[in-house]
């Protein structure tokens, strides 16, 4: 990272991370985020128990389309759910490509996803909401998450993972960390980077954009630490190497930065920015961080007995104030 010189910075790497700016300007969000991070840290230091049973997250896919091609098929939706389940359970075929030195880090997160079968009113559902819009495309302003703005309203965020699919300008996807507003909670993925068939286009046609975004939804940070190209950022995960900026494309191993030679960056991690074919693992440390999220702000998705197990031995109040569901 560059050192400021008389109030000036050379290039971008010395500037204040955007995330920090957001925290500074949104006090309620900052408080929620601080509580969640404290919980995660306390669980890590207390060596809190990981969840043993598989936690299954009900998903509602909001398909918001104008052109017929953007109205992605059920097959394409199913292909995305399949990828999520393979990636989070370490059953993806390409996990074998993890370099031997990193293989001990690879995690089965024991988190699965299925399309919702019950809607918020208790009726049966396919877990897919299709809504035609007059908007040519959507940006990063959350409009796709509101029917009144040409999108589709979120289902209750404590019962469903909302996944919006639409035509996105300039982005492949974006997410919302736990602790934000329920009306916008979920992930957004471009129809061109969704699933493995239909409108999914190379090099983002293996469904990894959703894997990455759901990682954020479960409180994972970018593996380079969100400090531009510097070496002082942190993803708050102990077993990921320090890394400069994002990796793009399809790097070859090893790809060192920030003094992390000889093994180099963990560019094959889902929380980097490589092409879909070049990312194929979560680490055990990331799985523990997602566990902390499930024990805290996303605890409504965890069965009560499992939640009690996860909180065993962790001090009262470490669960971000979330009640145990009965």
């Amino acid at each position, binding site marked *: 990272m560059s050192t400021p010189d008389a109030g000036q910075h*050379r290039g971008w790497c010395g500037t204040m991370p955007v995330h920090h700016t957001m925290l500074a300007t949104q006090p309620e969000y900052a408080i929620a985020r601080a509580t969640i991070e404290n919980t995660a840290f306390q669980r890590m230091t207390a060596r809190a128990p990981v969840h043993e049973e598989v936690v299954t997250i009900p998903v509602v896919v909001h398909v918001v389309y104008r052109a017929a091609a953007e109205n992605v098929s059920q097959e394409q939706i199913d292909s995305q759910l399949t990828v999520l389940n393979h990636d989070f359970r370490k059953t993806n075929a390409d996990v074998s490509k993890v370099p031997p030195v990193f293989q001990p880090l690879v995690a089965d997160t024991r988190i699965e996803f299925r399309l919702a079968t019950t809607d918020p009113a208790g009726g049966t559902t396919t877990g897919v909401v299709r809504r035609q819009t007059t908007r040519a495309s959507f940006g990063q302003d959350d409009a796709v998450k509101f029917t009144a703005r040409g999108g589709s309203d979120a289902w209750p965020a404590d019962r469903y993972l909302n996944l919006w699919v639409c035509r996105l300008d300039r*982005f492949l996807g974006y997410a919302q960390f736990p602790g934000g507003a329920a009306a916008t909670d979920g992930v957004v993925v471009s129809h061109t980077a969704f699933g493995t068939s239909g409108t999914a286009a190379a090099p983002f046609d293996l469904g990894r954009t959703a894997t990455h975004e759901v990682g954020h939804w479960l409180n994972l940070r970018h593996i380079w630490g969100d400090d531009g190209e510097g070496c002082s950022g942190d993803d708050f995960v102990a077993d990921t190497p320090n890394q400069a900026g994002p990796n793009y494309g399809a790097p070859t191993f090893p790809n060192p930065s920030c003094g992390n030679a000889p093994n180099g960056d963990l560019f094959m991690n889902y929380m980097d920015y490589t092409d879909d074919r070049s990312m194929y693992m979560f680490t055990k440390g990331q799985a523990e961080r997602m566990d902390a999220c499930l024990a805290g702000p996303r605890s409504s998705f965890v069965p009560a007995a499992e939640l009690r197990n996860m909180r065993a031995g962790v001090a009262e109040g470490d669960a971000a104030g979330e009640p145990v569901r009965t």
Partner: protein
Amino acid sequence: MTATPAQLAGDWTHAREEDSAGVKVYRPAGHPLPPARWRHRLELRADGTYVDHRLGADDRSPGVRGRWTVEPGRGRLRLQPDDAGAGAVLFEVVAAEPGRLTLRDA
């Protein structure tokens, strides 16, 4: 080179595929670029304001706003954020051609 504000004004997107050692190549809005998880975008507006679309932790690009100038004599691009607590960002303008802007960290 000594660039003029008129040469630099525009809505520029990083075409990292065209980068070479130490320099970053930017293309104007509308220039066809391959899809990417993220590209840096820098709007240098004719009225002297700018929006620096940074990479957010949630994959969005919150904009940092401020005023941009070309330093007299040295020809460096200076981005001064509106946030008084934030330092300026400086770039050497390697080349400013129609449809292509090349920068290097100053």
